[in-house]
């Protein structure tokens, strides 16, 4: 497995602050990870000092806990409850009025989330009907990716084929190293990235530094505890329509929609019209929706997917199966958010494995 990009540069922790400052000076709204109310969330930052400082996250099915690390790592925490989709595909946006969003910069986009942005590009950006509001945010966003050297217990990006090393879709990519001096290997992926990199205080990485970063990423891939079954998931899901497993899952599923809210690729919306009391003003808003909401499949005559089993099946079959038919890729990037943030701890990798097991000859 490759990884290291040709001749990376090295910046120190101050270099990261410098990067944030520079992107803000360029007129961008900078979004990055911040520690808030017991989790790492994504929000606008005004300086690099707001980024996490030695905070780690321990995750499991239905479980997430922050802890203090022995080092001062910025990016070593598994995916939190939010993803970048809320910045390119806002929770609620007015769709009957023009908008001029400020250019964004994303700091600390993990490989799974780079893949998720690419999946969303396929959903919103594709011809012949690209979503102009999505494109206005996405196309101008400057992306600083970060390799994942310490995957969480709920991560399975290696088996989803999206990580733990970033392979494209970024302007700059960082590999954070804490041992032997806190620093970041930096490489540019675009001309714009190169221009920004040239303005940073940096030095060249030694051959050994690049090799060591590669070893760390290989180790990260090998240490991942979870994986999707190595089978044609699209075919498996299509064959599993009548599986009894769906009801077994539904007995645990709360139908609360958390999995779809935290999923970095779930994109469904509904549209609401708003008027004032006198009817003199009307607005049209688009807001996130979920296939777990009973109204999601409401058509003339009522709700189509009345059972929880049918809703979970719809979600998982779309994510791992029919997404291929619709968009030419899987909808799952292996970030593990749906596992950690499911209050019932339902694990999509375990459920896919259970469906695969049902097919094994007895």
């Amino acid at each position: 497995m490759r990884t290291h990009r040709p001749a990376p540069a090295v910046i120190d922790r101050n270099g990261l602050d410098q990067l944030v400052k520079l992107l803000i000076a360029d007129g961008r709204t900078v979004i990055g990870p911040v520690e808030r109310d017991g989790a790492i969330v994504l929000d606008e930052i005004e300086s690099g000092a707001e980024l996490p400082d030695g905070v780690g996250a321990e995750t499991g099915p239905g479980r997430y806990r922050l802890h203090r690390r022995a080092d001062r790592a910025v990016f070593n925490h598994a995916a939190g409850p939010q993803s970048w989709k809320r910045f390119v595909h806002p929770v609620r946006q007015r769709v009957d009025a023009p908008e001029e969003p400020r250019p964004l910069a994303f700091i600390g986009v993990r490989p799974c989330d780079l893949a998720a942005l690419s999946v969303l590009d396929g959903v919103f950006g594709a011809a012949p009907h690209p979503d102009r509001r999505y494109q206005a945010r996405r196309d101008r966003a400057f992306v600083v990716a970060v390799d994942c050297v310490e995957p969480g217990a709920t991560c399975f990006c290696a088996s989803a084929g999206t990580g733990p090393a970033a392979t494209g879709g970024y302007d700059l990519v960082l590999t954070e190293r804490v041992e032997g001096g806190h620093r970041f290997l930096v490489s540019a992926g675009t001309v714009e990235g190169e221009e920004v990199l040239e303005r940073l205080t940096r030095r060249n990485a030694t051959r050994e530094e690049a090799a060591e970063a590669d070893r760390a990423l290989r180790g990260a891939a090998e240490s991942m505890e979870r994986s999707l079954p190595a089978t044609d998931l699209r075919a498996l899901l299509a064959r599993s329509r009548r599986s009894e497993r769906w009801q077994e899952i539904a007995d645990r599923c709360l139908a609360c929609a958390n999995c779809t809210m935290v999923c970095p690729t779930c994109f469904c919306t509904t549209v609401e019209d708003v008027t004032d009391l006198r009817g003199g003003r009307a607005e049209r808003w688009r807001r996130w929706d979920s296939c777990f909401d009973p109204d999601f499949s409401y058509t003339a005559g009522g709700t189509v997917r009345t059972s929880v089993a049918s809703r979970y099946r719809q979600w998982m079959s779309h994510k791992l199966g029919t997404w291929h038919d619709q968009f030419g890729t899987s909808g799952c990037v292996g970030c593990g958010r749906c596992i950690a943030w499911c209050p019932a701890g339902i694990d999509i990798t375990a459920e896919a494995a259970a469906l695969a097991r049902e097919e094994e000859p007895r």
Partner: protein
Amino acid sequence: MRRPSLAVWKLTSCDGCQLTLLDCEDELLDIADAVEIRHFPEATRRDLPGPFDVSLVEGSISTPAEAERIRRIREESGVLVAIGACATAGGYQALRNGADLEAFQRIVYPRPEAIRSLDRVSPVAAHVEVDYELHGCPIDRRALLGLLSALLNGRRPDLPAGSVCAECKQRGVNCLLVLGRAPCLGPVTRAGCGALCPAYDRGCYGCAGPAESARPEAIVPVLRRRGHGDAAIRRLLRGCTTAAPGRDSEGADDDA
């Protein structure tokens, strides 16, 4: 053009949901302009006869007189909206369902024989056809304004059916259950409050009743796994919505 007429009714309840209408301070003058208020005892002594284009009904049906009254209200109303946990799911007073009502009456009243109660407390929809329901204890001010705006403009109101969790995630509130901070009924509770309690680090106590097609009992193993005992879970689930349609009404008798 004639202004639509509005009536606000109170059955067995605390008046908090009616007061939500008065809490619409910034919009109150607009409301008073947009509708003719014909009956609203919490706001005015004026009491004009029906019919009413829109009736907002607060409170549960707890007495024979209320059972009779709600029929009359229904007959006189174009659109009938049940507002709040009492009107939609029985309220706290429904905890007496299945308990020993006479014992309660003996404890509380010096002359219990003067009390006329129905055996069971029930929501408005158990007695008459209800056009729309606003859930919660009390109802959400913005939800009430949204409903009135929709009705006045001939739109179908946009009423939530899903869970509070979706509102937490959209608002950016971290999950209290997953973080182990508090027991929370959000996953099985109907949205509409904007995740008010979780946003203040308080677990959802389910005042809006079950989300549509949610099974409240599915939360039990989720809470047990996080170390909450059965007695605490039972108490949490026995809030103000035990008479919601589809819920097994549980009494308060063994919940000492």
